[in-house]
């Protein structure tokens, strides 16, 4: 993998990542990952990435969910992708791996019934720093203020 490729591994089958570089696609495929989910907004970049990722044998999904205003349907779609049999081992990426960390935390709370403390502990164990945790807290507060308290499903 390239030196500046940011990654966190909360589970053996999910890699939360920053922007992969061209040389990373083949390395991800070699490492056993099968699907890439990109949540960045740039469609043009995503088209190029899809070409490179698919050439390396990866399945590529682009979901430009709004970073500033995540809604329950975005987390539900993430859950559906994670749990789809065709997904396999997933690389879930944005630019700096912070937004995907936030979405992973919301997914744990909304779809596994985890408390925020449990979800944060998993992200800390994966290597996220205190700046990232501050972002997760602030943005999760905003999410639940707008959408109500988490309910396990």
């Amino acid at each position, binding site marked *: 993998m390239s030196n500046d490729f940011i990654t966190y591994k909360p589970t053996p089958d999910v890699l939360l990542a920053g922007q992969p570089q061209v040389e990373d696609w083949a390395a991800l495929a070699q490492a056993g990952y099968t699907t890439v989910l990109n949540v960045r*907004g740039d469609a043009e970049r995503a088209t190029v990435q899809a070409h490179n990722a698919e050439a390396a044998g990866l399945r590529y999904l682009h979901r430009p969910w709004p*970073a500033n205003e995540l809604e329950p349907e975005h987390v539900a779609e993430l859950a559906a992708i994670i749990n789809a049999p065709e997904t396999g081992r997933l690389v879930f990426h944005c630019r700096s791996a912070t937004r995907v960390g936030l979405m992973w935390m919301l997914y744990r709370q909304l779809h596994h019934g985890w408390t925020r403390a449990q979800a944060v502990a998993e992200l800390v164990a994966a290597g996220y720093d205190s700046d990232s945790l501050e*972002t997760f807290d602030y943005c999760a507060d*905003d999410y639940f203020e707008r959408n109500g308290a988490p309910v396990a499903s």
Partner: protein
Amino acid sequence: MTSFDQTLDVKGAKCPMPLVKSRKAIGDLPVGQVLKVVATDRGSVADFQGWAKTAKNVELVGQETVNEGGQDLYLHFIKRTA
């Protein structure tokens, strides 16, 4: 320099916090006013462009980069349109 009505300092904040704070701040402005957002995250340039493309109530009226004490600051001027 683009004219503005209020300033939001999000220096040091990581994505998506600058966008979330800006969405909240723009909601407190009257329609037609401009919020100046001061960020240190280089990626905020593309992030604010993306937000303005998809949001129904904001327009990105300017972006500038300035250097202050050796640090690049990314300025985003967001107008509330609805």
